[in-house]
């Protein structure tokens, strides 16, 4: 978990702050949302001083989530929001070697297509959750349309909730060495070579690789 000479910078501090702001607000939204979705989970509201307080926690946390989304989408969409053909298609065809044995899975860039799909899901469902949530709070649409805001809010929840667990698994024990990309920001060279060889090679070629303990050759590997 610590930085040692020879490690590679994967994210900068701003990216990590945005990530964790979004992650924590999202988890609070999950928990409070579940407290309203299931009567059996109403006790979550009791902890917060009543279900009405829980409603306010949910609605105000959504504001923080919405702001972190703006930063997340604007800084990551170029790297994680664009599926590149045909390389990414090849990766998708063999699921990146994650589900069955693949001798030589296609090499990933900074984000593999799986990560890109997660980003796209968040980038689409996140704003949808904010917009539908606001229209549920402020019912300015005709009632026939307002009803569908609830359905869409639930569709977004199903998607994000499922992806959340995939993300947690693959970001921790599923890919050892990945978590520190979002904690300290530094990863080992061996990890980068295995997980994102194309990204590592490109940074070496462009001289943008930032190695711990060495003088910076160029801009950090994260977003500008």
């Amino acid at each position: 978990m610590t930085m040692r000479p020879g490690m590679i910078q994967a994210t900068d501090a701003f990216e990590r702050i945005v990530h964790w702001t979004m992650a924590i607000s999202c988890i609070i939204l999950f928990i409070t949302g579940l407290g309203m979705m299931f009567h059996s989970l109403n006790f979550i509201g009791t902890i917060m001083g009543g279900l009405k307080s829980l409603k306010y926690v949910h609605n105000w946390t959504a504001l923080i989530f919405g702001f972190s989304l703006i930063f997340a989408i604007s800084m990551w969409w170029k790297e994680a929001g664009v599926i590149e053909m045909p390389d990414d298609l090849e990766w998708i065809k063999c699921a990146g070697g994650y589900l069955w044995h693949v001798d030589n899975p296609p090499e990933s860039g900074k984000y593999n297509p799986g990560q890109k799909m997660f980003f796209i899901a968040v980038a689409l469902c996140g704003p949808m959750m904010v917009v539908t949530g606001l229209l549920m709070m402020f019912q300015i649409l005709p009632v026939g349309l307002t009803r569908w805001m609830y359905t869409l809010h639930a569709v977004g929840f199903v998607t994000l909730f499922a992806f959340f667990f995939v993300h947690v698994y693959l970001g921790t024990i599923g890919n050892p060495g990945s978590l520190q990309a979002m904690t300290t920001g530094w990863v080992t060279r061996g990890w980068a070579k295995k997980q994102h060889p194309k990204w590592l090679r490109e940074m070496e070629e462009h001289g943008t690789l930032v190695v711990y303990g060495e003088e910076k050759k160029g801009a950090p590997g994260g977003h500008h």
Partner: protein
Amino acid sequence: MAEKIKLYDDAKCTACRGCQLACKQWNALKAGQTKQWGSYQNPPTLQPNNYMIIHFQDVKDDKGGVKWLFRKEACMHCTDAACVTVCPSGALYYNKEFGTVGLNRDLCIGCKNCTAACPFEVPKYDATTDKVYKCDMCESRLANNMTPACVKACPTGALSWGDKEAQLKKAAARAKELGGSATIYGDKYVGGTHLMYVLSEKPATYAGVQIDPSVPLSITLWKGFLKPVSLLAAGGILVGSFLHYLIHGPKLPDDAGDAGKKEGGE
């Protein structure tokens, strides 16, 4: 359980609005200021402080003249009530004895799920209290073997309260007696409502009547399908991840053995 319903017979209604006043009085609802909008129908719509209104409507009769058409609008007390389905706090509930839909306002969190879900658009949200208001069929009176206040006040017998079976028979006989396009409204929708009408005209003739109302599809998809799917999907992912870890194993750097020693088991 003796399921009971309130029957409104518009042909017997004189629109005296005694029921409106009795409703206000029993529920201690304050009067609101309204504007003259060219109709005796006042207040013009249901409001947080207004659980029921009598609709006033001019319609042409067979002889080319004009006649009044009245209708009582209030919570229909559905058997399959969308508001109860969507209420997150249990504030809206079915009265176990009568089958009506009660509202425990202490539990209401003002989320407005019910105002969107109700096919009759009955519950009304009050921003000052951040709570929702609607007719609860005078549950406090029912619990003490009294009839709803509106029924008690009705001088013509247009409103009646009684066992569902008996009321349905009465309604059928009355519709037959009225003849023409007279019909019962409420018995076929949302599992049967606990406020039913004997309408002297076709339902479509009445302003604001929902033709063939049902629990909205969006609400059924949300609560009947997506809600369980959210847990099933997440549970499937968790189980899948665990199995993936056991069967496929984590993805380690190629020199993991070596690095593992050096880097403390990453």
